[in-house]
């Protein structure tokens, strides 16, 4: 147990901190809110990271990464949050898709796909969910039919974040039989799909706050060559589970920096007064709530440290990441909800209202609900914990 920076961590932290100080101001701020407009802004940033040797920190040097471990990546994340670095736009490529390709891909696939993720040239999305297949992902019906030299794929995907700006997708489609008795998990193949292929239609869906963040994706007889298969034909379920494991590590270790969120709340509370003009920080109810949230962020920090220490560099993480996700999601909801509750009307102004100064918290409050559903909803995570960790019956 050691909570302090090891020498290499301290050195890396200092290097990242001064690099950020020097380079962040060179970006074309402000960061655009619209996803399509944000892409070039983010690409400039990602290119800077790549050229500075700060992209793909935990990836193997064979694929343009830095070959560092999760500890240093965590240090990097902390420093980025501290300095207010741009939001990461290609989490799916960097954190889930890339590691999956590095884990099971052929040498050709690694050579083709990994580096452009790091340079920021190619963004990824994940075509898993379907209208009839959410939590029951293995029931998916998008079909890939074998043809000369590859497959033709038809079906519909939904809830696909960032498909409108993505260059490639991780796609699950059914290639095996559907006979009764045939294990349905075994009939699925994992494809790497270029999003500009003929027959793909992307239709944005607006989420609760009105932003077009996720999409419907229609696949109409889309051709992919044989080398688009990641892993084995009919062996895609295992690959998909690896991707979801990587996703949960990213969520468990904090796509949102809860330490920074609670620090912001503490600082805000110190300066705020209630309706009667009394300092908010004297209200016993507020004091209890802030203390409780602060304590929970400490617990979350300890869980993150544990996941980071335990992470097998490169290998797919186990079901323990479900525990991190189950702890993290309600914490972020409660942090954002509490901050909003201090505002008139509970901060429930439309994000477009010009005087709305807490719209970032509003977005976080809603986004955290989305996170609790994405990558396996809370109830599915509890099933995973009960069945795979505690050994209870399926």
């Amino acid at each position, binding site marked *: 147990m*050691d*909570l302090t920076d*090891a020498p290499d961590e301290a050195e890396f932290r200092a290097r990242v901190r001064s690099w950020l100080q020097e380079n962040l101001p060179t970006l074309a701020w402000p960061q655009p809110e619209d996803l399509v407009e944000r892409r070039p802004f983010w690409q400039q940033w990602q290119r800077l990271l790549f050229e500075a040797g700060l992209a793909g920190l935990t990836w193997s040097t064979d694929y343009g990464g830095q070959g560092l471990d999760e500890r240093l990546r965590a240090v990097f994340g902390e420093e980025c949050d501290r300095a207010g670095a741009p939001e990461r736009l290609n989490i799916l490529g960097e954190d889930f898709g890339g590691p999956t390709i590095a884990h099971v891909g052929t040498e050709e696939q690694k050579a083709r796909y990994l580096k452009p993720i790091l340079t920021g040239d190619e963004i990824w999305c994940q075509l898993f969910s379907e209208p009839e297949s959410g939590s029951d992902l293995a029931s998916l019906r998008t079909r890939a039919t074998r043809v000369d030299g590859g497959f033709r794929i038809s079906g519909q995907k939904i809830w696909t974040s960032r498909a409108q700006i993505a260059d490639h997708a991780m796609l699950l489609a059914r290639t095996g039989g559907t006979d009764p008795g045939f294990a349905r998990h075994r009939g699925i193949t994992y494809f790497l799909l270029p999003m500009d292929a003929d027959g793909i239609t992307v239709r944005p869906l607006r989420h609760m706050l009105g932003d077009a963040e996720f999409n419907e994706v229609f696949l109409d007889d889309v051709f992919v060559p044989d080398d688009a298969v990641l892993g084995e034909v009919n062996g895609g379920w295992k690959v998909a589970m690896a991707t979801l494991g990587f996703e949960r590590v990213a969520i468990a270790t904090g796509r949102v920096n809860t330490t920074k969120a609670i620090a912001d709340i503490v600082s805000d509370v*110190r300066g705020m007064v209630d309706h009667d003009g009394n300092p908010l920080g004297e209200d016993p109810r507020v004091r209890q709530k802030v203390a409780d949230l602060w304590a929970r962020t400490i617990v979350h920090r300890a869980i993150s*440290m544990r996941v980071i220490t335990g992470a097998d560099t490169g290998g797919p993480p186990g079901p323990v990441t479900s525990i991190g996700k189950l702890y993290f999601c309600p914490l972020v909801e409660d942090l954002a909800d509490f901050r909003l509750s201090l505002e008139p009307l509970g901060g429930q102004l439309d994000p477009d209202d010009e005087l709305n100064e807490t719209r970032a918290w509003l977005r976080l409050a809603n986004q955290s609900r989305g996170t609790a559903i994405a990558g396996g909803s809370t109830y599915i995570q509890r*099933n995973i*914990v009960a*069945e795979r960790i*505690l050994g*209870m019956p399926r």
Partner: protein
Amino acid sequence: MEWKLSGEQESYQQTLREWLVAVAGPEPVRAWFEAADPGPFNQRLLGDGWWGVGVTEDAGGQGGGVVELALTAEELGRAAAPSAAWLSSVLTVPATGRWGDTPSCWLTPAEGPPRVVDVAVDGDGLLTGTVPRVLGASSATSFVVAVRGASAVELRLVDDSDAVTIDLRKLLDRSRDVADVTLRGARSTLLEAGADAALADAASLSAVLVAADALGASQRMLDMTVAYSLQRRQFGVPIGSFQAVKHTAATMEVMVEASRSAVYFAAASIEGSDVDSRLHAAAVKAQVTADASIAADAALTVHGAIGYTWEYDLQLFYKRAKLDEYLCGDPHWWNEQIAIGLALA
């Protein structure tokens, strides 16, 4: 930055666990509390070499630090072993700076961490007053007390058994004991340690160790709950196959593993004198003991009526967790310490 027990710590934990299974199973635990005498257990703890692990050799212990103490507390909680004397003795080390073969305790009500109490001290250092609900008092042969002296708070050591009366109180959790302690002109000597620092250090230590105890108790209740849900059949299937039961167990597991992550973290924070170590200790006391109390009720619900009986062992751990929520300061009190530390107002 590393969240991981060392190989030595892991093997210590394992060996202690095995020892407790052999020595402090539910039968002897029940026998000790039926006899209202934790003495035999304290003797074994001392005789078999566990007493003093986690206290530095300089202070007369066997070496190790706060992480080792937390591991010990966790295992004692997992066994519902009669550990009041061990805990109360460990908490006196910040005041006395030394560790002996006989138990000691702070004269302070068990519902809070060690604090200044209403005991009168005269010019000769004779102490008079009553302190209610003192943890581990029935085993202790020396007592540390923080009193208001002529000019400042003083820490004093009492080892004058003739002038001390111990009135044992009966706790719902019979695996621990408290007593009302009355001093009638008891002789005492002034301790050198600074009172503020010793009280604060003992408070943080109490927070982490009670949280560790609650962690051990909830782990045990989770293990019992899962095992029972696989064995108990209703509607023709194990009740563990029902999603309501699975989700209850999964929620307990999240609490237990979150608690474990945080308890070891806070122990390491104290050990390493992190600038926020007092707040970390407060955080785990508030979070872990509150969660353990919730987990106890979840375990009871899954067990159904059998869990509600005297004969079934769940009650040992249920009561352990319920007392831990209040022992050495409840979550509300510790949260207020966090709020003070964060300088909210």
